[in-house]
């Protein structure tokens, strides 16, 4: 069970990095601003 949880957490982290990289690539290629630049300055 513990091994599964560890695998799940690692897989989650890996997919997060993967999707973030892909999103960043797609956004910048299209000339879109990255997300945090759009958030209102506080």
């Amino acid at each position: 069970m513990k091994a599964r949880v560890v695998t799940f957490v690692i897989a989650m982290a890996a997919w997060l990095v993967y999707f973030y990289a892909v999103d960043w690539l797609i956004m910048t290629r299209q000339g879109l601003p990255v997300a945090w630049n759009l958030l209102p300055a506080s």
Partner: protein
Amino acid sequence: MNPAGSMRRAWTVVFLVLAATAAALAAPDALAQAADALAQPAPTPTRADYPVIGGLHGRPVVWGFAQMHLFLAAFVLAVPLFVVVIELAGAVTHDARYDVMAHEFMKISMAAYSFTALTGGGLALALFLFYPVVMDYLLKVFRGQALIYAVLFVLESVFLYLYYYSWNALRHGQRKWFHLSLGLVLNTVGLTLMFVANAWTTFMMSPAGVDPATGAITGTVWAATRNPLWNPLNLHRFLANIAYGGAIVGAYAAYRFLSVRSIKERAHYDWMGYTANLIAVAGFLPLPFAGYWLMAEIYAYSQQMGITAMGGVLAWLFIIQALLIGTILLAANYYLWCGLGRTDRGARYAPYVKYIAVVIVGGFLVWVTPHTLILSPEEIRILGGTSHKVLGPLGIMPAKNTAVNLMLVFTFMSFQLFYRSGRVPTVSWAGVGNMVIVALYAVGIVNIVAAGIYGYITPTVYKVGASVPQVVTTLTIIVVSLTIDSFMARGARKVEVHWGRMSTRSQYALFVLPVAFTWLMALMGYIRSSVRTHWHVYTIMKDASADAYIPTIGSAGNMITLVTLAFMAVIVFVFWLSQLGATVQEAPAGGEDRS
């Protein structure tokens, strides 16, 4: 002769046909008329150039024939595409069931073929009768291509009949591979036929190879063929045809499932229905992305045309489109959920169905939420504006894109649950594999929602671009899950699938699919054609007929429904014919009656 050699020869034939077709598409210039005829500007027809025959105007006649021809042609061209794949599966696995099913799929499409030719002939006749000036110009632009279309049509008929009637003669061993090659050639010809017709349609929307000011022909036939919207429409129709063909043969399987009595036959038609639904869903899942590309290209070609389609009166039809697509997804999912009952192991996945249902229904509701309503002043006062305070934001594209991507992801999940209900993986890394897939779904869904939120906060010009990561995420989930599952299935313990253990109710979901698809195709065809507004050839040749306006939604709805009903009548007849062909009358008791 070995299989590899046979396949090599088959591919050589396919390559030669492709090369000949490509040469043929580019070569009609050789059949060109005199250069001065081409240099003349596009004709400017007057009202007198549009004959009214027996009180009939051209538009409803051409509309009806064109739509019927498109329904039938989409079906007839699509079936051999997946039949070849099923036949190949049978040849590779040596499982005769695939072969029997593939042959039966072809039998249905054969009965529809003559109707396709009839409506095609009717359409051509109606076009030349009612729109002679337009046809004269189009024939000039495309020069000899119409003749090539005719040759391709003859080839399509020859290979279709060869493929179908040689099925049992070329059933085993090396001959099977020869038969598969015939199927490949048939599909090559069929697809080319569709691509040529698509070129004529898209030329009228985004003309190329002609002078933009006068319409005089300046380029080659290839330039006119390869106009900006040609390939987006080619891809869209290719995928849609597969989904449509799958949906229609699925309805046939359901019809047979409900009408046969023996357990063996019920099992066969249940399996056939499952396969057909799978084909329909497989063709349907990438379809919104192809539609998106087509629409993006329409905007890129002419913003005005894009706004006519999605920002004006026609925008309301996209709400109806959402309703129909939601219906299709709900029906396909419902059928898959019922399918979990085919295995004893399927029950363990049943608790997840309600969560999938919540997402599908939720996505459906978001998708059908309009942004700006057509309201009376009193209604605007009560509502406090033209859009609802709370629900209004669900009407814009980021919400729709998020909803549709989640619906597609969860539809795929329904399929994956059924796939898994029939196998118990035995590989040592099955636990790890499952966790990777679950993590992929979890992060992927978060990413789709996050990109949706990004779409809200980003300036309007970036909203469309923000949907690209969502599409990529959906496709990643599907492709990676399928890949991991296929490796995990190696050496898996098979769980017995009780084909035929399906409720009668589930079969009605298979009837919903072709009806919704047909109506949807007619609806979207009306939009695609209407975006030209009062032009025959957009910005080149004006429509001077009495029908030079976008038909109202109400009258278009009547027309669309009428054509859909007519097509359904043809399909019921085709199903009946297919069943009739397999019926053998028993000899009367006491020998042949000689009286």
